[in-house]
């Protein structure tokens, strides 16, 4: 019995090896009409096609490929034509009229009109209304997109004719022109309820699976969660056409594997590489590296909670509520060194809460600090934090100050920051107890009583990432955000007032004045010490595509910026110089057949042979072993 089973198994194995070997030579035949595919690798997961579930940078990249925003972002983040091709504000700035492009179609051929834009605006208005009406709030998916309309003061929208969208706002503001909200096809989305679109508990969530219908330059046609999303050219796209017939975004769990894939041409672009990989890629042929400045920062956040003691929680000393104490500590942080050590030199020392990425809004502080331990000591003495006999600083209650410094385990590099800060601060008499906290736990520890927590920390190291407009970064430090976004619990009436003023200001120069004052208030009072502005390290191949353009044009990156502009500027690096544009007759939006000879497997015939041989040998070995065992045992029987 046993041996006959083995013999059968052996025969099956041998047969399948033969089949594989027979099939192998026919394996990779590339046809002349190969579509030109752009493959971009990222370290982030590709788990979201419903724009409202977006959280990660790559999620936003996905929906701006699929859809137009009402107005898209230009090369320098300025508002440019998107779903609307013209726009105008009323004299009082409270009514916006958008002209929707004539003859525009969705990728399935349905006309795209103001009804679609109205549907999208109404969806967010409905969600906001429902959120305000219920005690527990309501969020569309991750809840990140509603704010772009609420911060712009949107209160009503109407569509008097198919080419016109009228939006009423509560206050005059330019923010609507920067709203990061995709315009969705009403004929598809209106079949789903608010609960389904918002992935509400108990509802069957609308995942927006491919084929996605959009007006963007590319539309998703295939999605393997955790692997890749494949986009085909939208045949109906109204704008400039990039050379790529298809765009594939791929997820990599290991940055090393991703960088190797770039070297072999398996991918054409990578985002999220390490400083040492960045250095190594600089000498590779046909590869260009780009160091963009990040629209965000890493900070030291102080627990300044001043609304009374929190039983069982709160900061370990009231000194953290004192701006003079925080200012003194900031003199004892060598930001240049942190950039050098933690970021490998890729980044810039930080100052205000609006990163230099916002060239129009960032200001350098009026009263800048430098790294000066003696000055820090002088300021601590002056502010009333004397040294005791053992060289320890005492707070107002006469207690030695030992600050608990923590950071999330997801941001391992802060361990280096913490170690250096510990050295500097202990030399001025301030003790540091540094420890890492699991991210989920830290999110909880950071909540004040207003958010149902105990604010049980002194100092945390973390970071924020912003939008094309600085509003969201400015918002984090408002006192109204205590209980949700605020993690320093800083309260400053003037700052709060300025926030509302700048939000409602249409004149750019006046608005800059408000924002500059906010940055100085922030810098002087130091609820955060901005440690550094990280760099965005990207790399791409130059032998397949040309026309890589940066967004913003100074200090930006070609892809993974804001919107799909980078994809539309690409040209074919190997195209014959012909007068016409390369790809006016793109393939249809249906999943296009895409045999790919450009997958980086040079010498495929040879490798096919090798794999066939390897598998054949392996399987053959099993077969022979088992067959011989069989003959052995029959001999015995």
């Amino acid at each position, binding site marked *: 019995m046993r041996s006959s089973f083995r013999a059968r198994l052996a025969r099956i194995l041998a047969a399948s090896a033969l089949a*594989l070997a027979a*099939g*192998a030579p*026919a*394996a*990779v*035949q590339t046809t002349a009409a190969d579509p030109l*595919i752009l493959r971009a690798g990222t370290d982030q*997961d590709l*788990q979201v096609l419903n724009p409202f*579930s977006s959280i990660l940078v790559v999620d936003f990249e996905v929906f701006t490929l699929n859809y137009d925003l009402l107005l898209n972002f230009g090369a320098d983040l300025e508002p440019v034509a998107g779903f609307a091709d013209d726009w105008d504000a009323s004299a009082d700035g409270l009514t916006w009229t958008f002209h929707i492009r004539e003859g525009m179609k969705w990728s399935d051929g349905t006309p795209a009109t103001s009804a679609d834009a109205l549907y999208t605006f109404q969806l967010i208005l409905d969600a906001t209304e429902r959120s305000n009406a219920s005690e*527990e*709030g309501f*969020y569309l998916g*991750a*809840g*990140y997109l509603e704010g772009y309309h609420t911060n712009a003061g949107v209160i009503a929208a109407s569509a008097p004719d198919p080419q016109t969208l009228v939006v009423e706002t509560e206050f005059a503001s330019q923010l609507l022109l920067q709203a990061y909200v995709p315009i969705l096809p009403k004929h598809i989305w209106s079949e789903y309820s608010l609960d389904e679109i918002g*992935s509400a508990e108990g509802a069957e*969530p609308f*995942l927006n699976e491919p084929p996605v219908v959009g007006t963007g330059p590319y539309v998703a046609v*295939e999605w393997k*969660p*955790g*692997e*890749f999303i*494949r986009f085909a050219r939208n045949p109906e796209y109204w704008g400039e056409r990039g050379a790529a017939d*298809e765009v*594939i975004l*791929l*997820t*990599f*769990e290991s940055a090393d*594997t991703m960088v190797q*894939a770039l*070297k*072999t041409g*398996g991918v054409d672009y990578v985002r999220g590489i390490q400083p040492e990989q960045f250095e190594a890629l600089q000498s590779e042929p046909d590869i260009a590296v780009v160091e963009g400045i990040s629209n965000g920062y890493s900070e030291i956040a102080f627990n300044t909670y001043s609304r009374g003691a929190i039983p069982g929680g709160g900061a370990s000393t009231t000194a953290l509520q004192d701006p003079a104490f925080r200012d003194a500590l900031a003199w004892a942080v060598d930001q240049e060194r942190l950039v050098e050590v933690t970021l490998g030199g890729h980044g810039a020392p930080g100052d205000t809460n609006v990163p230099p990425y916002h060239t129009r809004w960032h200001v350098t502080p009026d009263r800048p600090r430098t790294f000066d331990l003696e000055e820090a000591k002088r300021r601590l003495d002056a502010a009333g934090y004397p040294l005791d006999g053992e060289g320890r600083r005492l707070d107002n209650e006469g207690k030695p100050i030992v600050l608990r410094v923590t950071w999330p385990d997801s941001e391992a590099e802060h361990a280096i920051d913490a170690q250096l800060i510990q050295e500097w601060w202990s030399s001025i008499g301030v003790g540091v107890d540094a420890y890492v906290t*699991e991210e*989920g*736990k830290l*999110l909880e520890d950071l909540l004040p009583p207003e*958010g*149902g927590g105990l604010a049980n920390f002194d100092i945390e190291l973390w970071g924020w990432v912003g939008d094309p407009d600085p509003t969201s970064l400015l918002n984090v430090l408002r006192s109204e955000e205590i209980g*949700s976004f605020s993690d320093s619990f800083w309260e400053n009436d003037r700052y709060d007032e300025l926030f509302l003023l700048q939000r409602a200001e249409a004149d750019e120069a006046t608005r800059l004045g408000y924002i500059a004052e906010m940055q100085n208030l922030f810098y002087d009072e130091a609820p955060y010490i901005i440690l550094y502005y990280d760099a965005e390290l990207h790399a791409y191949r130059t032998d397949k595509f040309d026309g890589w353009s940066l967004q913003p044009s100074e200090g930006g990156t070609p892809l993974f910026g804001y919107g799909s502009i980078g994809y539309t500027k690409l040209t074919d690096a190997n195209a014959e110089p012909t007068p016409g544009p390369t790809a006016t007759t793109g393939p249809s939006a249906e999943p296009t*057949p*895409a045999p*790919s000879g450009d*997958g*980086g*497997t*040079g*010498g495929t015939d*040879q*490798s096919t042979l090798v*794999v066939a041989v*390897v598998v054949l040998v*392996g*399987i053959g070995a*099993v077969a022979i*072993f088992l067959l011989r065992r069989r003959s052995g045992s029959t001999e015995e029987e």
Partner: protein
Amino acid sequence: MGGSFVLHRIGVATATIVAIVMLNFVLFRLMPGSPERVILHGTPRVTPELLEATRERWGLNDPLFPDQFVKYVSATVQGDLGYSFVARGQTVTAVLGQRIWPTILLFGLGEIVAIAVGLALGAYSGWRRGGVIDYIGNGVSLLLYATPYFLLGMVLLLLFGVALRWFPTFGMTTAGASYDGPLDALADLGLHLALPLATVALGLIGQYAIVMRSSIVETLSEDYITTARAMGLRDGRILRAHAVPNALLPTVSLVAINLGYVVAGAITVEVVFNWPGLGTLTVEALQARDYPVLQGVFLLLSISVVLANLLADLVYGLLDPRVRT
């Protein structure tokens, strides 16, 4: 009695699985961060009211025992492991279901190749102890055994993927490829499979060869081998008919237990080659704090170890009647 032996083993395995299911329940509640926080991860504005409503909706205000426990056990038994946080709206079982087949393919084939080559190499080395094959084979085996998967994988990747460009370096298929036929698709899969498969197989071969070798060496000093020699049997015959079957016993349990560690071993190999299996899923889930998925992976991993052990026991019983007492 064969029947009671089998029943006993199955009983032990079942009891272990029940214990694991219970441990899973406790672990989820010991995790840092309260469950409602974890559930609301990603929701920016969390009010006390929302927290309370969430606690109510998820039954977190019910007593841990029996209410919550009974609900959890009955859901798990029905295969309901909850929803993934990250793959929004997808059930954990659906997510696991998509990712388990690439892992089974990779490690199933890896085991087959490793068993065939490793056992043959080990048996021959042991038989010809001190010979050239033994000398080289043993050295190579030790080296392979001692090399971590990710290192071995990276070396193969750099050599055959990047330097020689023989094989693709990542993924299971060429993203965006379309095929002329099933054989075309199979060839693409085969190319992508080659390097990760070689990594898994080489790693296991070292281990199997070493165990098989020492087992053979031990067997050779047994009386029945001397008897067989005295009977004038040919060397090859003694090896195949007498030495190998007896020496297989410790190897069988090693192989069976290894089967259970497929998921654990998968993590590093899969991450190096971006293979879309349970290993990369585990890393994704860890990074994104997708606790329900991690819980599911943990359950699956534990159960597969238990089942593999059960299999080892049963096969052992078949091979060696002395065990069946």
